[in-house]
C-alpha cells in the first residue's frame, strides 16, 4: 500500500490531487463520472459576494496545446452557493475549497465573512489572480503591496486557512509569493492562467469578445513548473502547484520540485475523471519505484 496522504500543515489531504477552480464547476457536475471522495479535494468555481454575469461569448479559444478562456467568473455568488450547493457537498469526505473573488478588497472580505458562517469548507483559495475581469488583465497578484495587504485583510476576516492563488503574469513570482506569506497566507497556489489572445485572420477580430483571456493547459506546464520551483525555495508555507497537468507524470514533476499538492484544471474538461486517473497514475509510479509515501517524494529534485 502506498501512502498517498499529504499534510498541508493546516489540513491533511487523502492524496495530493485537487481539482482546480473554474474547471470543476461546483463539484456536482462531476458526480456522473467519478467518486468525489477519491481525490484529495476540489476548489469550487470562483465566487464573488453576489452573482456575476461573466463575459459575453465567445469565451473560449483552443490553441496549440492550450485553451484560452475569458469566462469572467460567471457564477452564483456566495449566498446561493452556501444555501443551495454547499449542503449537497457536505456528504463528501473530501476537502472543499472555495475560490473567493472580489471586485474590491471589501468584496473579498464580505464574501469571506459570509462564508465563515457555514460548515463544510476546508479553506479559502483567495483568487487574486484572475486575468479576465479587469481591463488588460489587472489583478491584485500583479503587485506585491496589494497582495500583502489583501491577504492580510482576508486572513484577519477569515476563520479558515487562506491559500493565496498567484498570477504568472509577473516579473518576479518570488516577490509576490513572499508578500502573500508575509500577509499571513497559510498556503500558496499557482499558477492562474497566463494573459493571452488570438485573432481570427478572416474577420480580423479577436477570437474572444473580451479580447484577452487566460491561457491554460499543457502548453503552459513548463512555465508553471518553473514558477512553482522558484516559489517553493523562497517560502515556508506549503505550495500547491498547477498548470497544464494532464497525467500522473505531470503531477509528479510538480511534487518533485516541491509542491505539496497539485491542482488539475483544463484536463477535467477533456477527461471528466482526470483527477481520479491521475491519482491512480501517481500510485502506479510509486509502486513501480518503491515509493512508500508520496510525501517523501515532495521536493526531492536533485540539482
Amino acid at each position: 500500500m502506498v501512502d498517498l496522504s499529504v499534510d498541508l500543515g493546516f489540513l491533511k489531504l487523502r492524496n495530493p490531487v485537487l481539482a482546480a477552480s473554474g474547471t470543476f464547476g461546483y463539484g456536482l457536475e462531476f458526480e456522473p463520472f467519478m467518486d468525489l471522495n477519491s481525490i484529495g479535494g476540489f476548489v469550487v468555481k470562483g465566487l464573488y459576494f453576489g452573482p456575476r454575469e461573466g463575459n459575453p461569448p465567445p469565451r473560449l479559444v483552443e490553441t496549440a496545446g492550450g485553451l484560452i478562456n475569458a469566462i469572467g467568473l460567471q457564477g452564483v455568488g456566495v449566498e446561493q452557493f452556501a444555501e443551495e450547493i454547499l449542503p449537497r457537498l457536505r456528504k463528501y469526505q473530501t476537502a472543499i475549497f472555495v475560490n473567493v473573488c472580489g471586485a474590491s478588497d471589501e468584496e473579498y472580505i464580505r464574501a469571506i465573512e459570509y462564508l465563515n458562517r457555514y460548515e463544510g469548507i476546508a479553506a479559502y483559495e483567495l483568487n487574486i489572480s484572475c486575468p479576465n475581469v479587469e481591463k488588460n488583465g489587472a489583478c491584485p497578484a500583479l503587485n506585491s503591496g496589494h497582495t500583502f495587504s489583501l491577504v492580510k485583510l482576508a486572513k484577519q476576516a477569515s476563520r479558515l486557512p487562506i491559500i493565496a492563488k498567484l498570477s504568472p503574469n509577473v516579473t518576479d513570482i518570488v516577490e509576490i509569493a513572499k508578500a502573500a506569506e508575509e500577509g499571513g497566507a497559510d498556503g500558496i497556489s499557482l499558477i492562474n492562467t497566463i494573459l493571452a489572445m488570438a485573432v481570427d485572420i478572416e474577420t480580423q477580430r479577436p477570437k474572444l469578445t473580451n479580447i484577452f483571456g487566460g491561457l491554460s493547459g499543457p502548453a503552459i506546464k513548463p512555465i508553471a513548473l518553473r514558477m512553482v520551483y522558484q516559489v517553493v525555495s523562497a517560502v515556508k508555507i506549503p505550495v500547491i502547484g498547477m498548470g497544464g497537468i494532464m497525467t500522473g507524470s505531470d503531477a509528479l514533476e510538480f511534487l518533485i520540485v516541491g509542491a505539496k499538492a497539485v491542482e488539475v484544471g483544463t484536463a477535467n474538461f477533456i477527461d471528466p475523471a482526470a483527477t481520479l486517473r491521475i491519482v491512480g497514475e501517481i500510485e502506479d509510479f510509486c509502486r513501480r519505484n518503491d515509493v512508500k509515501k508520496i510525501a517523501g517524494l515532495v521536493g526531492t529534485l536533485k540539482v
Partner: protein
Amino acid sequence: MTKDPAARIVLKQEWGNYFLFGVESPALAGEAKPGQFLMVRVSDHIDPLLRRPLSIHARERNTLEIFFKIAGRGTALLARKKEEDRLDILGPLGAGFRLDAGLKGKAVFVVGGGRGIAPLYFLARELRTAGARVKVLYGGKSLPDLPLKQKFEKAGLDVACSTDDGSSGFHGLVTGLLQNETNKQNPAALFVCGPDPMMKKTAEIAAREKIPAQFSLESMMGCGFGACWGCVKRIRKGDDGAWRKICEDGPVFSGDEIVWEEEG
C-alpha cells in the same frame, strides 16, 4: 451521462466532406434522446486538446450514429478513423428536443440546413413514433450537400429539399422552402438546426406565423457537461436573458427563449 473510452466504429459512410459513423456503445445508446449530443475525442494526445461536440444522429439498441462535415482539423482527424477503430466518447449530453405529447396526429416540420441535419433524423423518427405527421425540410448549398436525402426517404419520411444553386429541389434557401410550406399549411411545431442566419430567419417566420419552434444551437464548447461555462448564449427564462450554458440547458431552446441579437 457516461464516458465510453472505447466505442467501436461499426459503420463508416462518406460523401465528399460528409461522414457518417455508426458506433457500438450500449451505455451511450441506452440513454440517448433526440437533440442530445456527444463529446468525441478526436486525438489521443494534446492536438487538438478538446473534444468535439457532435449530435446524436440516430440510435439503435446498442449503437449510435454521428453525422458530420469536416470543418477544421478536429473533424478532419475524426474523418480518418476507420471501421473497428475505437472512439472515446462522453454522452449523451444536453437536454435535447422537447417532444410534446400534444403533437400526436399533428403536422410538424423538421428543418435542417447543411450539417444541421445531423440531429434531425433521430428526432424525425421519434416524432413519428410519437404520432406526429412529420415533414422534413432539408437545405444545402448544392446537391452534394444533401447526402442524407435518401436515408430519410428510405426511413419513409416525407422530405422536401432546397439548394441554393437549384441543383436539387426548391431553388433557394431552406427558409424560402419553409415559407412556401407554411403558406400552404401551418405546422403545429418547428424543429430546427442549421447555421445561425438560417435559424434566425426561421425564428422570424415562426414568430410571425405563431408556430412554436425549437432550435438546436451551436457554440464553442470546452467540456460539454456544464463545467466550464464556455458555451453560453443569452437565453430568456422568464427574465431578460442571462448567459446560459448551451451544453446543459440546451443545446435546444425555444424561439422565444433565444436572444438572437446577441449572437456572434
